[in-house]
């Protein structure tokens, strides 16, 4: 093989890099554009506010799926936030640098890599069967807490570690207890970072399907309490695509999902820009 001149290789490599970058953007635009253009024309107030018929028909709207998703977000958040932020406070502020702390950190990292469906199996064995919550929104929410915990812990811990050491020292020097320092100095300073993590978790709940498919039952009826079965929007897309011919409605539900994810993305972006501006402002 004759070797190419460095300049020609440079040009070829640049061409490849540009093509790959453009492909990535095009793939994204295609997926989002396709789902939105096909889906938005189906979305109407009637579609949003009527219940799906369920079963094999594919008729009806998505009202019960919206309600189930909201229930799920509320319950998951109520359990996940104290647990995740508490764990992050422990790891960032209290944990001694010893083997046990390393073990905890290692398990947070390993847990983050465990597939959703295995959390689903675990939730099915523990919450659905052993604890007799049956297929329910509660069982789904508890499963999601396990799934999202490592993510929230990592982002909240990172936000707390970014608070300058001098602020801790100043508070302690003024006679504050450790907890007062955490609650009144560190938490407010780390709040934007923590909120970003929490919002990304909401995005994760909206997008999640595998572990909910095996713990929430998937009934299309309107949930009446947190012990009802439920079907989130993402799981509804799966049922429509696999069991009915209503691909147009699957695309419409997918369009609602994409809009929600775009909103989540927009908020986190805005928050992190504000955070950066604040950092530059020197507080």
């Amino acid at each position, binding site marked *: 093989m004759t070797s190419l001149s460095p300049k020609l290789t*440079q040009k070829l490599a640049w061409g490849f890099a540009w093509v790959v970058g453009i492909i990535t953007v095009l793939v994204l635009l295609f997926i989002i554009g396709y789902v939105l253009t096909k889906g938005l024309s189906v979305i109407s107030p009637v579609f949003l506010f009527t219940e799906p018929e369920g079963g094999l028909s594919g008729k009806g709207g998505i009202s019960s799926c919206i309600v189930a998703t909201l229930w799920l977000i509320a319950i998951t958040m109520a359990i996940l936030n104290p647990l995740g932020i*508490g764990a992050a406070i422990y790891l960032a502020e209290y944990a001694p640098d010893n083997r046990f702390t390393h073990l905890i950190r290692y398990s947070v990292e390993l847990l983050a*890599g465990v*597939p959703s469906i295995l959390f689903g199996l675990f939730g099915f064995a523990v919450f659905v069967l052993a604890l007799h919550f049956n297929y329910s929104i509660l069982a789904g929410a508890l499963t999601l807490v396990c799934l999202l915990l490592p993510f929230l812990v990592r982002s909240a811990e990172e936000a707390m570690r970014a608070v300058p050491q001098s602020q801790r020292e100043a508070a302690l020097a003024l006679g504050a207890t450790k907890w007062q320092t955490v609650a009144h100095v560190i938490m407010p300073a780390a709040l934007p970072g923590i909120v970003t993590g929490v919002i990304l978790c909401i995005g994760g709940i909206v997008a999640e*399907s595998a572990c909910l498919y095996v713990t929430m039952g998937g009934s299309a009826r309107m949930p009446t309490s947190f012990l009802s079965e439920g079907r989130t929007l*993402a799981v509804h897309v*799966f049922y429509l695509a696999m069991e009915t011919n209503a691909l147009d409605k699957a695309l419409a539900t997918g369009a609602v999902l994409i809009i929600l994810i775009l909103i989540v*993305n927009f908020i986190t972006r805005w928050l992190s820009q504000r955070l950066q501006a604040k950092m530059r402002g020197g507080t």
Partner: protein
Amino acid sequence: MSRYFVDRLSRHIVFIFGVAAFLILVFIAIFILKESLPALREVGIVDMLFGAKWYPSLEAFGILTMLAGSIVTTLLALVIAVPLAVGCAIFLAEVAPLRIRNITRAAVELLVGIPSVVYGLVGMIVLCPVIADLSGTGSGSSVLAAAIVLAIMVLPTITSISEDSIRAVPAQYKEGALALGATHWQVIHHVLLPAARRGIITAVILGTGRAIGETMAMVMVIGNSPIFPTNIFAPARTLTGNIAVEIAAATGMHESALFATGLALFILVLFINSIGLLVYRRA
């Protein structure tokens, strides 16, 4: 309550929360193992791992075809995704002008957030018919469709970690090489990529772990027949899909065999991610 009491109380509470991630990981391992023991005893580990027949109604529980299905789709997806992702990382870190970089990076971040069912849906509607035309038979639900969808799904993970590690190479390396008269591409090829090698390998390993755990999108485009993935235009089934498709209707030994499927997946993923974490720590 005195502030000293609150201080001591909160110290204990955050400690308990801090241990939660570790406990969840242990519980997941224990429960999945416990639930799969009946099947492992009845069928035997060897017959289960190397059995090619999965006929739950005949009590035949061999998972070899699904194991092969997971591994083949993942490897095929990596063959497609790794060159694109590394190219994209080079594009973002070294080639693209600032504005185009920002757009591309936003696209990569958004790709992470899109729900897996949306990827599956677009794959079903757009990709499968194309593949059906190419192969001339079937519905297009195939190993190839699964691999392409999976490649798009792991692309952002591999891209962003690779980009970070290319950026983390000290500027002096690059400046030194440029000062010696190397072209920009020679610098990337002979200096930056070798220096960022570990980070890129970590990115690929983490992407592999994610690909093997993907469930709903796979169920939607792979056809879910438990046969060996010898033909990329033919259907197959993944370990994850086996669990998702059958768990709701399974009882007794069948249910236990599905947990054993989960156990195989769990061990596979922990193994892959542990290697990833080890490489990452050394990087």
